[in-house]
């Protein structure tokens, strides 16, 4: 049984939801609360998998409740169920929120979303990872975007594209505030959100996520992501998915970032063996990364890229595609980095590999 806590200042809403959840009372145990303070008490008394909160409430509003829960109970997945259309008040708690549901939300949709989240969360049984998910998107960028003034669309795009953590946050915000899977590229995320909101999201950095972390490690991961992104875009060339390939490259190692944030003390460099990952976390970084992107409503294609970016056979078979551009770019980049021949050399025609290498090499040389 999973446990869910609904918070709303309108008791009839809570009663309605309790009635609704009657349908799935074999899966979910439901508790309700009419105030944030009471909700915090309930959370302190027993574990909940999901908290679903209204935004506009007297005394303690939803944003404050979510922020408190995020710090005090980091392994609770947070949903917003609000009739309020304005996105801005959500900004402060966006790093903590998994899903935004608008009122009125149909019963089947609410139940479906809860189910999906529960399934994804069950993939992250290790509670330490669940706790750190919310921190990943509030990390400071390697290149501070605050310096960009005035924040034009072009500058914002350039700024976000240079920083994986910021890109993750922005795309996640687009999924959260506009629609799941709406944004396949940085530019489209900015266009959907509007420059003003995008700019505020870019600046939404806080110290909660950063505690105990080393900026150098984050920078290393970030640099790697950017390099693969540039490589993937170079391989995609004129293809219309070039920007998606870039985003795929930028985010492909998000799982490693999660591992680092989860247990920085046991982090074994930027390229640990998957066996170590499995040993430590029970999952590879590709599995964890894709699960998290799915949890945050990223487009399926992007989730697939993260999940399969080490699956070179699939990459070779599906070439050219978003996923293959990312996987091959990383493999070829690795040859330039380490000097060991790329694995793909044994899998593809040499002329094709050399053609790809010719696109990758300038990126490596101008890094």
């Amino acid at each position, binding site marked *: 049984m999973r446990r869910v806590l609904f918070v709303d200042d*309108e008791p*009839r*809403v809570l*009663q*309605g*939801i309790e*009635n*609704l959840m*009657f*349908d799935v009372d074999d899966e979910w145990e439901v508790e309700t609360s009419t105030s944030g303070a009471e909700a915090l008490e309930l959370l302190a008394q027993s574990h909940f998998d999901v908290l679903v909160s209204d935004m*506009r409430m007297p005394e303690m509003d939803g944003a404050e409740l979510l922020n408190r829960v995020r710090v005090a109970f980091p392994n609770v997945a947070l949903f917003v*169920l609000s*009739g*309020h*259309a*304005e996105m801005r008040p959500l900004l402060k708690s966006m790093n903590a929120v998994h899903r935004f549901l*608008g*009122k*009125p*939300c*149909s*019963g*089947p949709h609410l139940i479906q979303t809860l189910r999906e989240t529960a399934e994804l969360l069950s993939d992250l049984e290790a509670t330490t990872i669940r706790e750190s998910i919310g921190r990943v998107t509030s990390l400071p960028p390697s290149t501070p975007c605050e310096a960009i003034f*005035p*924040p*034009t*669309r*072009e500058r914002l795009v350039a700024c976000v594209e240079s920083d994986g953590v910021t890109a993750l946050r922005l795309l996640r915000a687009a999924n959260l505030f506009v629609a799941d899977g709406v944004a396949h590229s940085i530019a*489209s995320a900015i*266009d*959907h*959100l*509007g*420059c*003003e909101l995008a*700019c505020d999201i870019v600046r939404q950095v806080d110290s909660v996520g950063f505690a105990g972390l080393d900026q150098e490690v984050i920078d290393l991961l970030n640099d790697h992501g950017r390099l693969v992104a540039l490589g993937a875009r170079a391989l995609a060339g004129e293809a219309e998915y070039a920007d998606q390939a870039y985003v795929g490259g930028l985010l492909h190692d998000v799982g490693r970032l999660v591992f680092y944030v989860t247990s920085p003390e046991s982090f074994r460099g930027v390229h640990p063996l998957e066996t170590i990952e499995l040993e430590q976390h029970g999952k590879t970084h590709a599995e964890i990364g894709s699960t998290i992107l799915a949890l945050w409503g990223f487009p399926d294609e992007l989730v697939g890229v993260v999940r399969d970016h080490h699956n070179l056979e699939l990459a070779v078979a599906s070439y050219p595609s978003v996923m293959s551009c990312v996987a091959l770019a990383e493999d070829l980049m690795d040859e330039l980095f380490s000097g060991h021949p790329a694995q793909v050399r044994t899998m593809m025609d040499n002329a094709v590999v050399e053609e790809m290498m010719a696109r990758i090499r300038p990126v490596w040389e101008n890094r």
Partner: protein
Amino acid sequence: MEGSEQRIAELERKVAMQQATIDAMMDELEKRQSTTEQTRFQTWARQAQFINVIQQKTESLQAALAKNNELTSSLQVSESFLSAVVDSLPIRLAILDGDGTVVRVNRIWREESSHLGPVEGGNLLAFYRVRSAAGEVPPQLHNAIASVIAQKFPTYLDHTEFGNLYFQTLVTRIPDTTHVLVAHLDITALIQAQKALERERRETELLSLVTRHTENPIVILDGNAKVTWTNTAFDQVSGMKITGQNALAVAAQISDDPGVSALLGEHIRLGRHYQSTHSMIGADGSRYYFRVELKPVAGESGTPFFMMVLNDVTENVRVQTTLASERKLLENVVSNVPHAIYWKDRYSRYQGCNEAFARNYGLTIGDIIGKRDNELIPGKDGALGFARENSVSRGGHPVLGVEETFESENGPQVMLTSRVPLIVDGQINGVLGIFADITAFKHMEQELNQARRLEAIGQLSAGIAHEINTPMQYIGDNIHFMDKAVTMLLDLADKVDGLAAREDGVGSDAREWLKQCRYQVIRRNVPGAIQSATEGVQTVSQIVQAMKAFAHPGGRELKMADINAGLTNTITVSRNEWKYVAEVETAFAAECVVRCNLGELNQVFLNLIVNAAQAIADGVDSDHPRGKIIVRTADLEDAVEVRVTDNGPGIPASVQPHVFEQFFTTKSVGKGTGQGLALARAVIERHHGTIDFETSSSGTTFRIRIPKNHVEQGAA
């Protein structure tokens, strides 16, 4: 006797010599009468000496005469000579005896000087005493004569003043006698000349002082342009001492006016008067402007010299330059200011205007000046303007910030007008009008008002949506719950219904229960009731969502948005506008996402749909009971196209050109503001898109195109 004759001859010779000497001296005296002071004094001194000489000679002559009594006859001759000599002297001579009685006077005394003293037989002492007492003669003269007679001192020599006349007076004893010689030499002319000279000298001194210290720099040049004198002012302003230098060279050096030297030279050469203004760089490095006046002056000796007076007009020139540049500035301001400016006299005739004003009339400035409004454009109704102008130019009170609407070729023109009295020398001389074209601002203001209205509507509907959404949430949840619950209950009831077939007591109870709760009706109607309640909740939710999305309180930013969704929402919220007159059909392309401000576009869509519905409503009758509105979207290569078609009667040809004009409306009062399509066009233009229409008697299609790839540079 022979010796006596010799002596007489010698005397005669001496007398002759003396006569000659006297003549020469007289000549000299006359000649010198008009010469300089110094010479005059010399003459005077010589005369004094001469008198002494005469005196001495006379003495010696008389002594000789006395000693040679025996030679009387000869002496008489001599005496007559002497008399002649004495008489011919221009000096007034009188010989007195010991008590002051005049013994002998010379001719000039006798003939011309009776007022100075008596002739032989009169007593000069007595005369002077009387005259002294009367103040006519200086008292010392009487005393002097008395003292000389009394032998207190031998000689008295002094100036004496008789009325207007001045004399050099000599009183001396004639040696070896008791006689006294009184001689008056008339020096009046001398004294007067001296006084005149003194006056002149003082005047000159004064003039020189004035010249030296006057503020006007002054330079005196000789005929060769050599500087002979400069005053302090010149020295100070030029910072140099140029006396002795060539003025032309100096002029070439200190004036930055290259021609000035040649000009001055030419005038000096011709001895002409010259006057002009020249600039020069002063000792302080700043530029001075001088009115230079070169005056030829005839010198005493006949050689010409030149006086050059410089009059500092730097301040005047500066004021003139400033005025000129201020005038230039003013002209620039007046001609370049975007406002239309004109000024009229008290009789409403244009005295001037700027380009902007002339452009408004489609005329040139020259066409306008001197005319009245009604002369410029026949039949132009300037009555209102005239009344305002009149009150300004008569009453003297400015009328500021009045909004007036004028008809122009490009439609109505809204002007912010100000009229102020034109005051010249304290008199109201006309009126100055300043018209600012605020048409664009008025349009903007209206758009802004519209935007504010939209924003307010957006906020309001967001609030209402929130209010509605909360109950809709639990209504929906509860209906969902009831659906499940009722389904279970009906299953239960069905089982009871199954029991009703039994013949036993259970069966009869079951029949009774089912009858009591009218089971058959419930069984038949409940699923439908729940179904329609669910649908109702969905419909309300959709409307509320549409309302929320329609108002779209997302600021004025452009974002990626789905045009199809916008149209769907707009059709939903405007249902009440069209549902009685038309059906709405939609034919949407699959993907119509474009960077836009959907809130504004929704407003445009609403206008088109409402216009379409109203066009159809005008044509609805028994033959055409309901019209049709078709909303289509198309995903073109580089743009998204929206077409709204109605099957109304079409737009009349006369109306077609004005469709997009601000404030143009064919609707009756209260039905429209005439802003709809003008605003629609403004919104579409802001999206860099186009809006146009096709119309015929069978309907009208408005078409909007919004480009896909227009990224505004630098837009935040």
